[in-house]
């Protein structure tokens, strides 16, 4: 990794010179990349400095870590729920995974890609296919982007969602081709209507057989096509290959990742530099995220509105607690983010778009149930260890409070946490 970005915001953050590295900086990293962490872990990580905090976020715990066993069981629960057609079971299975994952970065990215390649169970209806797509985002969401894009193009849920399954040689369906360019790889303005039409021809024959990807040569249009300036008897693979090398694709994905984890981009040069950085790390998502997480831009960034999943999972992880998955899903629906059912192929809202009168009430109602703790519908469970109010505030909101109080019982801790969760300070990351 010899690429040294020129943009000042992309230079590595040097604690001491560029600013401090303490509990608040560690909290910002953990809350944005891993749905937060309980107070004791946050303080422990922060005391070890920036490089080790990054390690704790970006390196997968070893396979021998005992926490993996319970987590893997949750994955099987989700698969079983899908097979019996139980969408709520799948949703709550995923939510509990996010609460308990030993490597929450991977779950945070599975959420990011679910939003980017937004596919809804309401149309797909094949729940095992939705569950397999979720596993794809979990397993490949930190790898190389071209590989992820290729796998998504062959994904059964996506083929159903964007009508690839009904596209034929005589009548190519343009739905997937259009969104592939507009939403998944390039962004509007970087392809033409003809590119969409020809791309749809290249993907003909990409069908399903017994619910799995299958190439049907009899339905493939092997005629000559021109897509994004390349001419030939192009196949779907060729279009994906063009995108894998397309500079605008690197920039589009890099900017989207930056926007989600760091903040909005006003500056053209920053966008260009981010694209170059993504190429320099060979479009490897984890390497890219690690670079932006350690950049000056990250630590200087303004607050971001937490989406409902980040907000709810963040509250529960920040407490070091567990909660009823199905009850969390109940609240997520009211806050506007039902897992496996994004509102459209463009995904969920961002920023202040999350906050409406109804979702503001929903966040307060969630906070009310956090305060009720074990007795409330959320059925919160937590090992009864005392915690300083100030450390709890740091874990829940990213900022400490002056109050030196120590909370001894879980009931007190849940009540205090409910107060934080009901305040808009906890709604931002």
């Amino acid at each position, binding site marked *: 990794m010899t690429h040294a970005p020129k943009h000042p915001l992309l230079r590595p953050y040097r604690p001491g010179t560029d600013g401090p590295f303490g509990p*608040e900086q560690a909290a910002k990293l953990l809350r944005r990349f891993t749905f937060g962490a309980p107070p004791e872990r946050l303080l422990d990580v922060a005391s070890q400095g920036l490089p080790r905090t990054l390690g704790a976020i970006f390196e997968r715990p070893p396979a021998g870590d005992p926490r993996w066993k319970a987590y893997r069981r949750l994955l099987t629960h989700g698969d079983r729920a899908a097979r019996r057609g139980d969408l709520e079971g799948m949703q709550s299975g995923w939510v509990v995974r996010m609460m308990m994952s030993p490597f929450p970065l991977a779950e945070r990215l599975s959420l990011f890609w679910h939003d980017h390649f937004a596919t809804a169970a309401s149309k797909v209806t094949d729940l095992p296919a939705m569950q397999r797509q979720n596993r794809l985002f979990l397993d490949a969401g930190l790898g190389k982007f071209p590989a992820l894009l290729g796998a998504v193009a062959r994904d059964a849920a996506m083929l159903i969602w964007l*009508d690839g399954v*009904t596209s034929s040689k*005589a*009548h190519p*369906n*343009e*739905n997937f081709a*259009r969104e592939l360019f*507009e939403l998944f790889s390039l962004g*509007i*303005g970087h392809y033409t*209507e003809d590119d969409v039409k020809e791309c749809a021809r290249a993907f003909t024959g990409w069908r399903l057989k017994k619910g799995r990807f299958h190439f049907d040569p009899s339905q493939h249009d092997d005629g000559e096509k021109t897509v994004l300036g390349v001419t030939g008897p192009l196949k779907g693979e060729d279009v994906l290959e063009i995108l894998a090398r397309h500079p605008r694709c690197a920039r589009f994905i890099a900017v989207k990742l930056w926007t989600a984890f760091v903040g909005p981009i006003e500056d053209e040069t920053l966008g260009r530099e981010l694209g170059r950085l993504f190429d320099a790390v060979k479009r490897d998502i984890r390497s890219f995220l690690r670079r932006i997480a350690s950049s000056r831009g990250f630590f200087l960034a*303004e*607050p971001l*509105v937490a989406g409902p999943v980040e907000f709810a999972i963040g509250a529960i992880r920040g407490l070091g607690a567990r909660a009823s998955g199905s009850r969390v899903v109940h609240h997520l629906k*009211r806050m*506007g983010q039902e897992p496996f059912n994004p*509102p*459209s192929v*463009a995904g969920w809202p961002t920023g*202040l*778009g*999350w*906050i*409406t*009168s*109804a*979702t*503001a*009430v*929903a966040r*307060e*109602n969630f*906070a*009310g*149930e*956090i*305060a*009720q703790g074990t007795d*409330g519908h959320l059925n919160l469970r937590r090992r009864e260890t005392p915690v300083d*109010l100030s450390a709890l*505030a740091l874990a829940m*909101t*990213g*900022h*400490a*409070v002056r*109050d030196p*109080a120590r909370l001894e019982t879980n009931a007190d801790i849940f009540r*205090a946490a*409910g*107060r*934080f969760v*009901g*305040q*808009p*300070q906890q*709604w*931002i990351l």
Partner: protein
Amino acid sequence: MAPKIHRRRFLGLLGAGALGLAIDPARLHGGTGGLGHPPQLVFLQLTGGNDALNTVIPRKDPLYRALRKELGVPAPTVLPLNEDLGFHPELAPLMSPFEQGHLAVLPAVGSPRPNLSHFRSLDNWHAGRADLEHPKEGFVGKALREAKTTHIDLFHVGEGPTPLMFRGAPRPVVSLSSLDDLTLRTPPPRSPKGASPEGAGGELLRRLEAAQTQARAMNARLERARKATNSALYPSFPLAKRLAVIASLIATAEEPAVYFVELSGFDTHASQDVAHPVLLRSFAHSLAGLLADLRAKRRFESTCVAVYSDFGRRAQENASRGTDHGKAGPMFLAGGRVAGGVIGRPYDLENLDEGDLAMDIDYRSVQHHLMGEVLSLKNLKDPSERKLPRPILG
């Protein structure tokens, strides 16, 4: 034209407070004529791109049969609107408002510079522009700002983000899916003792706090709206439930208001023969329910419902028994003061625009008339290129 005295001001004259009334507002406004109610404008978006040719059907045109071999609606089942056009049979509940002259049908509304992307097309529609990237302001927000109006309520009845059309408005938008959505059920403890986290937030935090305050304030009005709900007039479709919420809000309105509600699923690339009639049925029965409820609530005269979609669809059906993204498509306007009938020319299937219906009326002209005629806003500019041939209200 628009009422000069709104309820709040009138009650002020009577010496009654704005809230905590001892007087039933329905009685004050009882009967026809007399005191008017503040104007109420409802936008109903058929999201996904509603297929024009299978909604308002060119019932005698042989070209329609040729373009729609699989999907064509059989001529005898089409409900005639005039010599050329007819409704899809699932729109039967809308025939009586049409015959009574309270429903206007605009067959081919579109943009002079159409875009076939859902998002770009709807963004442009909401922005009241024809060719803008990343619009920052919606046409309702802009019209309110330019007319310097703050006496208006904006409601988004549904889930998801606040619609772009309201952006830039001098009033916050209230979002809800049902009246219960704005009910604080288990309020968390407030005002923590000395425990407010320090640190940044700034403008973003202030906006979040404003949203929270707005949501809490709505709770009071919801109680009255809940009592005004008459679900018996509605079918069980989710859209109908939302329209019932809107009717309750209209019945308790003290200010002019604009509402946004949507019915999704119109992106019928495949199996449209199955999906589209179901969507039309849900749309027509729900809208008919709203119109009946508004009559019962004596708010039919003060309300106008405007129905539109992302775009129309390709004239030629595709091989998946569906249709792909197209250009112009129909709009509907309904309400007691709407001058009904067909507005604009019938389709010209011989002269398609790259395989799509060509625009007959610019949607910005319809928006302009709605802002001016229904809401009586002043200082509006009409940027449209193909204008409505006549006013929309009678």
